[in-house]
């Protein structure tokens, strides 16, 4: 089992959600996040004083996936998230030891 995490532009969230739903993903977690990558942040001007804002708004999407689905899911997310401009974000996956559905106590793939 893998945890797929995507940190992407907020306005792509709906596209990604729909793409994951059509793939058959049952659930996901979305968190408002902020951060920067290689391009850093942006500059704001107040009465001529320039402020560099490093942290730009992002959303962090987390999905638990079975091992076999992981690569495909990553592709789905990337396809939906990509605009081709800087700041499109990152997707990664990490192994997950176990997952439990709180209500029923089901474990592993059954809990997804």
């Amino acid at each position, binding site marked *: 089992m893998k945890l797929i995490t995507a940190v992407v532009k907020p306005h792509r969230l709906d596209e990604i959600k729909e793409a994951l739903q059509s793939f058959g993903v049952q659930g996901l977690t979305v968190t408002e996040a902020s951060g920067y990558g290689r391009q850093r942040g942006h500059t*704001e*001007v*107040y*009465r*001529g*004083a*320039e*402020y*560099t*804002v490093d942290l730009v708004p992002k959303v962090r999407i987390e999905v638990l996936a079975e091992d076999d689905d992981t690569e495909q899911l990553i592709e789905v997310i990337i396809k939906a998230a990509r605009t081709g401009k800087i700041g499109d974000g990152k997707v990664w996956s990490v192994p997950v030891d176990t997952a439990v559905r709180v209500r029923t106590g089901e474990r592993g793939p059954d809990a997804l």
Partner: protein
Amino acid sequence: MLPGISTLAAPAPDLSAANTGFMLICSALVMLMTPALAFFYGGMVRVKSTLNMLMMSFISLGIVTVLWVLYGFSVAFGTDIGSVVGWSGEYVGLSGIGLTELWDGYTIPVYVFAVFQLMFAIITPALISGALADRVKFSAWALFVALWATVVYFPVAHWVWGAGGWLFEMGVIDFAGGTAVHVNAGAAALGVLWVIGRRVGFGKDPMRPHSLPLVMLGAGLLWFGWFGFNAGSWLGNDDGVGAVMFVNTQVATAAAMLAWLAYEKIRHGAFTTLGAASGAVAGLVAITPAGGSCSPLGAIAIGAIAGVLCAMAVGLKFRFGYDDSLDVIGVHLVGGVAGSLLVGLFATGGVQSDAKGLFYGGGLEQLGKQAVGVFSVLAYSLVVSALLALVLDRVMGMRVDEETEVSGIDQAEHAETAYDFSGAGGGAAARRGVPAPDAPAASVPHKAAPGTGRSTAQDPAAQDTAVQDTAAQNKKVDA
């Protein structure tokens, strides 16, 4: 209050119901400017000091009003003593004034003139507070407002507008307060800054405005209230001069906003919201002294010049290293000086007084008078304000301590915060803070002594116990 009015007004006027009503409305409009200023400033500070900024303006409504009734009106507009201050016993406590007694050659009651002028006295010290954001003890500020109004504003108002005041007698034109209000407040800000110094982190930490919509709301309301400020300063409108003032106020403000935005677009690449709001205020400041003496075209020129000058001036604090937090000096002092001096160029001689500026064939005489007026008020206000701040700093300390400043002055000085940002679980946390129905109402939590009126729900020890209980229950379920 206006030089030259005695030649224009009828010899023995009767009370005019129209002018009286007009002036009461103007007074109410000017009153609105102080809360508007509070919003204008409040949006420009960081979240953690929003309430303090609002309160520094708002408190002036309380303090100055009471002082004005007690003695302020008498000092500013009483019988002249040596061209420096006034004093009239019947004005003390506004006690000896008849209901229908008219103000000096005008068609409105003394009472109406007194409340109109009161609103000017209120907003002037409030203007200073923008330079001192985030770092001044509220008690010290309140005392400063009372002392400053007494020894700076009331006398200066007498110099500029009081019959017998030395600048008034000299023929300095300050229609609605460019010198007495804006130069005065801006110079005071500079004086106090010299004593209190910069904010912690100035030049290093980002100190971005937390709410530009609030700034726009404040600027819009200031613009609206300013019609009372300026159009009302003719003290009536039966000869149409008030309407000219209204027009000039509108066009100068519009021109200044456009000029500031154009400067900004060229210099920094964007038309900013804060620039539009600031440009409008700069135009309002600049037209204040000049609006009664120039034509609408002159008002456009004055507004545009002030818009660009002020936009340039707000950068000076970074060059010279003084922390004028919200640009009181850059906007009010520079705008006030510009407007007051531009009277010497753009006065047409045909509206408020017969004094003509350089561009209308009057030579340099009026410009010279304006310069004397501006720089004497500037110097007096600068020195006396710095001395007042110095004394207060020695006696009680002007600044909050560094920890308070960094963690936020709202919580420390007012026991409140402007916004509730409690996120996950915030609702539950808030509910825990509500006293149980049978518990006595809790006072300010951090000041309450243990066991005095504190509800169980707010007692940290009790909360800890509750948390432990819940944890114990969870364990049982797991087992």
